[in-house]
């Protein structure tokens, strides 16, 4: 609306310019760190250590990418992550829908208590040692299910799904019931098609969360053959941060050689491991924003 004497009104040239400039600056702030990592990954190893190339790579050195391509450990970790992401996401969707649907029924006995019962572990965890003991006793230690099982059930996601389901008119369920549909049929044929946005949100939450997670693997998965990509990435990054003055002389040399060979590699690795999520995000973004807003407004 145009206001008298206000040159910044909606749709004015100056207003649009300001918005564009602000958006460009914000976009630059968001994109530049990733671009900087890309520049360093392509620069010579010494320039990568010096970190003094900012816009254009110092030479074009694809050595680290070549190393990555030949690195079977990295590919194995990549494969493991894809496996964990796919299974965890599918199982997460199944558990969310199966747990959320009954909680929307007004006729579920003790629904209030059940919800409270579900909420308690959302706020209070058992802690590392008890969780480790549980994992160990269930023979999940050094087993891929130690990564998948804890990741495929989330109270938060169940509450989110339940909130979305509640927004679906109860009359739809009643009508289906009159037509003779079972609860399973109502859930799969009426609720699920309507709930695509929340399903997409849960899926992207789980994909990104599982893709980025490394701590569980660090504690429960010592076998490098089973480890996910992020733990491998962490290994490449962390091995450099060593205080050399604290090491005996004979150990310093090994640490320095390791640092030199890893500096450029770590940047290439960051690019390589982030690409899938970067490419996947735009496809989910539409549902993501919509789903989160719906969930939050009607919660």
């Amino acid at each position: 609306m145009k206001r008298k004497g206000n040159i910044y009104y909606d749709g004015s040239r100056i207003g649009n310019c300001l918005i564009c400039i602000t958006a460009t600056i914000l976009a630059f702030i968001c994109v530049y760190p990733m671009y900087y990592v890309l520049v360093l990954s392509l620069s010579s190893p010494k320039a990568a250590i010096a970190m003094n190339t900012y816009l254009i790579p110092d030479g074009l050195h694809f050595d680290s990418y070549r190393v990555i391509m030949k690195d079977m450990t990295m590919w194995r970790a990549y494969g493991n992550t894809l496996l964990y992401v796919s299974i965890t996401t599918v199982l997460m969707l199944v558990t969310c829908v199966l747990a959320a649907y009954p909680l929307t029924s007004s006729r579920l006995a003790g629904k209030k208590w059940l919800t409270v019962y579900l909420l308690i572990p959302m706020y209070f965890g058992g802690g590392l040692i008890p969780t480790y003991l549980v994992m160990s006793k269930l023979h999940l230690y050094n087993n891929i299910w130690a990564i998948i099982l804890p990741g495929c059930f989330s109270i938060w996601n169940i509450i989110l799904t339940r909130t979305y389901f509640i927004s679906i008119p109860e009359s739809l369920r009643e009508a289906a019931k009159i037509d003779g549909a079972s609860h399973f049929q109502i859930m799969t044929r009426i609720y699920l098609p309507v709930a695509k946005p929340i399903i997409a949100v849960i899926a992207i939450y789980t994909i990104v969360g599982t893709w980025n997670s490394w701590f569980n693997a660090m504690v429960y998965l010592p076998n490098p053959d089973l480890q996910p990509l992020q733990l491998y990435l962490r290994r490449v990054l962390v091995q450099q941060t060593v205080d050399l003055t604290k090491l005996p002389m004979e150990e310093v040399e090994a640490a320095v050689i390791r640092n030199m060979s890893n500096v450029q590699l770590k940047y290439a690795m960051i690019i390589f491991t982030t690409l899938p999520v970067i490419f996947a995000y735009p496809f989910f973004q539409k549902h993501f924003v919509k789903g989160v807003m719906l969930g939050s407004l009607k919660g």
Partner: protein
Amino acid sequence: MKEIVKRTLAVLLASAAVVSLAGCGEGNTQTSQSSISSGGSSAANGGDTQGVSTIRILSSETDNPYIKLEDREEYEIWGYLEKLFADKDLALDIEIIPVDQYQVVLQTRLASANDLPDYVNLTPMDDTTALNLATNGTLLPANDIFENYGDGSAWEFLKENADFAIRASTAEDGNMYWIPNAKSTYYQDEVHSTCQIIAIRKDWLEKLNLDAPENAEDFVAVMKAFRDQDANGNGVADEILGFDPSVFLNGIAQWFGLGTDLASIDIQNQKVVSPWYQDGVKEYFSYLNRLVQENILDTTLIGAASSDPLNQKMAENKVGATFTYAMQKWLEPSIKAEDPQFLPIGPLPAVEGITPVNAIEPPFLAWKKWAFTKACTDLDAAGRFLDVIYSDEYRLISDFGIEGQTYDIVDGEPKLRDDVINNSLWEKMAEDRISTGGYLWGSLFPGYSRVDMSNEINDVEPWKSEYQLEVLDYQPTHPDNPNPYLALPTEEQLERKADIITDLETYSKELAANLILGNESLDDWDTYMEEFKELGLDEYLEIVQDQLDRFNAQ
């Protein structure tokens, strides 16, 4: 269409489940194979297959970037080791954890006391946590195993050659709960060691026709000349002194006669002193403040959490002088310049009447930790295990490897081949699956090595070896790491140290940084000393002195 989607989803789910189960099975299979190949059930379970006892080991991977323990079966030298154990009716069941996750895995496993190994590499664990594990019975007294099991040769060897390591690892109750790595350094059969010093760019000195500095004033002049005459030739006055002065182990503090740590050991007088209480400390801060004013000292490196920022400056060819080991070989290859060279200097005189100190690496070094846990029930097997790793045969394969492959006999003595000494060839050695035992299984067992410094001295540039020989007998000296000179603290001391050390160290670092940057004035010195006393510096010094005295009295 929907039907197709459903079917596809079903197939995908089924495949995922099958693949995951296969992955799960693979993990278990590997573990069981490892156990079987290692000779059967564990000593922890009293396992004994056909007279062979198996020791279950939990350890990290080696630090070596190329030679990896997980590839051990492919190295010929591993067969030699297995044979040594087999001769004592022992087999090893080894669980290897990657280095970066070892600390978390170790702490979780030991804290939960679940599925404990018989024998464990405890290195990432600090003394306090390790002593707590000893107190609650998770760790067994290793001295008991040394003395009462096996043939006694291991204990005899350790007492004779590495008594210092026993003393540095014996707890208040007289027990040694972990076994450290031990190293003693000699030069021409006399106890000596290398040192950490300030090294200056030799190629820049030559380029600008400058003499190496002979005192602290000269040093300022040379560093100014580096900057003013653009020693690195990039057109910018960016040549700096690259080191972190928030701690006292920095080379320049030692020119002013100062110790190397908050509680530093004056080796000649066997006294624990704090640099904050020493003469010369005010002059030291004035000097560093001057270096800041002159833009010689790079202030961004003060209190740096890692060596990364310094590595950057080094690579950019901006560092004119730095703090490092006298015989280092790793800095020059990291610099983006043609034939850079570092010349060790000092200890330079800085204040009249104060003799500069040399910061030495302790010639008797006890570091890292290995321990037996309560899961180890076959103590006789544990005793035999120790007999193996302290035997002459083991030391030969550990230090030298295989004759004709990694070492030759020269004048009746084993001598490592040049390509084994040259660390730049580790990658090649790994490809050829050639290694000494130490490179391959350094993280698995403690050891003792008697190092002849002449190998290192002969292996570096002449100006470094000449310097090292010159300062071999220099006094006074303070160790760059006080721990090898100290007995373990008592439980009470441990508690007090834990209570006060964090605040003390934080205050010390912050005050040092502020004095150097000129944010705090030397005029308020008495106030700072009062604060130190309130934070418990005197008590801390008393505790460390007591540890030193007990170490010497043992």
